[in-house]
């Protein structure tokens, strides 16, 4: 144990001494590495099955990854701040149901629908934010509780009905393509990803999220309002989950009481694959996009080589394990121990 620690402590210095070539530095950026792997997977699959490169299939892959992209985007904010939000799937489902019923029954146009979805997401995210940022419950428990509440609420709101008639003017967004292989819905998603990336990288708030996630104590001493930053990350996570609900409606043109039940962990998996660590302080918005596209591409490729759908979850699991194994930052120590140390020091 001690020897292992010494090795990890010594390695940064060693890295400085011998500069690796430029391109390996580039590969250290997770987004670029994963993009490279995506290209390889796509190339290999196309070699095996030419239809993989068909514009219809590519459009399907991109459109399929949009919902998880939204969820992973919100999750990234939370995870960079060293939290976790287990309730994003339920928020997404609830938003899809609420918005879907309004579209179905009252003929709500697209823009108000998006705003309504965002509002639902923010309100539900506020629930998490209050529990974590104000009451200061551990995020994993707080969001586990809200997961139960929100998924129960999904059932109560649907009351045995389901959303199944969404006008084609809206669902067309999910199937239409601007260029061959690039669906409209992807173009609608990109601005959110880019704005998130900008917020995280270039605004005071974004830098504060990294600071809090890296070391909350140091952030506090540097004058960052730690609890306020954490509060906001959960609101943002809710907001993106709410938007994800609208994206879900557009893509699948329906929603039921179980929508999003299984997407919580997939969203976390996509964020992790995109380079956002549960240990906080690292990651980014682009990683969420790349991670979820990677998941969809790989799972589609698996089905192309006639691996049964049954094994798709296993594929996700193996990919998460590989991503984590590759990422030495998440080894030895980990969130929970550090969080514990922190909490022991702070007031409780």
């Amino acid at each position, binding site marked *: *144990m001690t020897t*292992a620690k010494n090795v990890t402590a010594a390695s940064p210095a060693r890295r400085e001494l011998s500069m690796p070539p430029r391109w390996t530095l580039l590969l250290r950026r997770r987004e670029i590495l994963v993009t490279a792997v995506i290209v390889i997977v796509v190339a290999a699959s196309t070699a095996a099955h030419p239809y993989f490169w068909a514009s219809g299939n590519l459009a399907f892959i991109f459109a399929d990854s949009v919902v998880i992209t939204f969820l992973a985007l919100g999750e990234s904010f939370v995870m960079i701040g060293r939290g*976790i939000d287990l309730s994003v799937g339920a928020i997404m489902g609830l938003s899809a149901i609420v918005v879907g019923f309004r579209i179905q029954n009252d003929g709500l146009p697209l823009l108000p629908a998006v705003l309504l979805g965002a509002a639902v997401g923010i309100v539900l995210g506020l629930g998490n934010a209050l*529990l974590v940022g104000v*009451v*200061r*419950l*551990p995020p*994993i*428990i*707080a969001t*586990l*509780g*809200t*997961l*139960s*509440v*929100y*998924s*129960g*609420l*999904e*059932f*109560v709101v649907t009351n045995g009905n389901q959303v199944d008639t969404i006008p084609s003017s809206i669902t067309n967004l999910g199937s239409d393509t601007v260029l061959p292989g690039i669906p409209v819905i992807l173009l609608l998603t990109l601005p959110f990803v880019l704005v998130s990336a900008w917020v995280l990288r270039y605004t005071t708030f974004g830098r504060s999220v990294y600071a809090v996630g890296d070391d909350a104590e140091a952030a506090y001493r540097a004058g960052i309002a730690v609890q306020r930053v954490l509060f906001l990350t959960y609101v943002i996570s809710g907001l993106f989950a709410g938007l994800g609900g609208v994206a879900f409606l557009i893509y699948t043109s329906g929603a039921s*009481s179980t929508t999003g039940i299984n997407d919580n*962990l997939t969203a*976390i*998996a996509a964020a*992790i694959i995109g380079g956002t660590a*549960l*240990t906080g302080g690292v990651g980014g918005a682009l990683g969420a996009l790349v991670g979820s596209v990677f998941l969809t591409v790989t799972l589609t490729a698996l089905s192309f080589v006639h691996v*049964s759908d*049954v*094994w*798709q*979850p*296993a*594929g*996700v*699991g*193996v990919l*998460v*394990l590989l991503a*984590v*194994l590759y990422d030495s930052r*998440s*080894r*030895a*120590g*980990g*969130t*929970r*121990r550090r*969080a*514990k140390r922190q*909490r*022991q*020091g702070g*007031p*409780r």
Partner: protein
Amino acid sequence: MTTLALPRRWRVPAWGACLVLAIIAELVYFTLTTRQFAGHGTGMLDLTEQFAPTGVLALGLAMVILTGNIDLSCGANASLAAVIAGTVLAKGGGPGLAIVAAIAVSTLFGLFNGIIVAFVGIDSLLVTLATQFIVTSIATSVAGASPPFGFSSAFQLIGQGSVNDVPIALLIFLVIALAVIVTTGYTGLGRSLTLIGYSPRAALYSGIAIRGSLTAVFTLCGALSGLAGVLLAAYYNSAQPDIGTDLLLPAITVVILGGMDIFGGRGRIGEVVLAVFLLGFLSQGMLIEGDSSLSITMITGLVLIGALVIKFAFERNLRQRLNARMRRFRTLSRDPHGPEGHGS
């Protein structure tokens, strides 16, 4: 040394007392409002066999959480065990063989989790998140298009049978509970687990076999998940590949409701057992009253959040008063280990 992280024996377990009061209150309430609930006294006992699997799962999880880790894969592991038991029975194996095979497989997956967490050093949340997906796939694949159902009555006895009106599932749960209480409270392994959860560094410096203990606790959790899966298959007389997956949330809820600290090092198994009964009777009572299972999920979540808010507010308050008193005695108030062990 031994009292370092363990609660003092003579202190009244305030949380446990609250749980007992809550159980009595809800039993009285349901008995008064719903005629079927008490059912000549044996009704309540019969209800216990419905949540005994959750209880067994929660006991394994509680030990893992005691070390400051978590096992998200235990629910999926229970499903796999149920499916394996069902498949063995469907292929003509005896109940004994089915049970052994099921528990062996889930123990193996527990061991796998433990080895990765302890020896590779990856955070347990990530490892078990990944194995949860993998185990789910395996369970679905083994179950195939038509999952096995309709088992021999000897096998069903585990989940549905009773001895003098006491369900066998409840007896199994109580025996396991007793074993876990003894293991965590009165053995070297239990003390290691508590210390690892309380302070991994202290555990390291006091020469505790951290890796061995972690591997052991994940393996135990796997074995108990397997048992929970067998109980499930026997109770429902079928082995759907998602039969145990839904138990993960209730199990975590129960452990937290039982006062276990999610960061490890604090908590009593006895209170977790009480929480199993509290939540079990609550959900069964609501089911009998005619609520749907998903609105019960919602109530479960609300109960969890409410209980935690109360508990955290209570503890913070206590802590602050304690710190103020300590400051008066010019003791280090910031040192987390200082005021901890001495009580008020």
